[in-house]
């Protein structure tokens, strides 16, 4: 089994529901993409379950680039979760 340390960031109401702004987690080998990561997070606790209860309004970036849930997650990656942006 390969250890897969990944840095995760949460913004806006995802951050508020999860309860932390960022964390580094070691993922099991079967977590291969962002979608897998979300499924894994949903089982990580109540806050996570609430944050990811509905993934329709969840967006993500892998290594600071907007990505789909099908995007691969590799050891050392930075994955960020957030709602649709509302700046400007």
């Amino acid at each position, binding site marked *: 089994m390969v250890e897969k340390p990944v840095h995760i*960031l949460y*913004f*806006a*109401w995802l*951050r508020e529901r999860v309860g932390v702004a960022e964390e580094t987690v070691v993922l099991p080998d079967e977590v291969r993409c962002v979608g897998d990561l979300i499924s894994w997070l949903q089982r990580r606790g109540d806050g996570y379950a609430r944050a990811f209860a509905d993934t329709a309004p969840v967006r993500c*970036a892998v290594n*600071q*680039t*907007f990505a789909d849930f099908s995007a691969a997650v590799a050891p050392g990656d*930075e994955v*960020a979760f*957030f*709602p*649709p*942006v*509302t*700046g*400007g």
Partner: protein
Amino acid sequence: MARVAVQEATFDVSKEIAGLYAGRGDIGGIGCFVGIVREYAEGRRLEAMTLEHYPAMTHTAIARIAAEAEQRWNLLGCTVIHRVGRLRPGEPIVLVLAAAAHRVAALEATAFLIDWLKTKAPFWKKETYADGGEAWVEARASDEASALRWVKQSQAEPTAG
């Protein structure tokens, strides 16, 4: 290369504009947009608007949007300043400047930049109301539609040309 800044402090529009054209004679016009925090959001009075962002990504995301505008409209200068943190109603929140030889390019690029900032830059707004409540601003379909006009135009170009 655009000037991009993400900061808590406000900005000086005159100074930013002068910085674009000072000492050069090729710029014929500068388009500009200043976004301001409004006091009412759907009837509720705002106490403050708090802007959160993704520091490791924000600068790069804005620089990419600006580079796209510079290339598409042959800009001779481009500035984007976005404020973060807690802002009060009536405070400026964002500044976009696009300098070009002619006005049409300058104004189109300005519209493009603010449309894309609203849909492609990692900022999130939270409204704190005078009555004590607070809520994260939801993305608006109209902003998505505004941004899409530029995509359509871009895709249509090869066919039209």
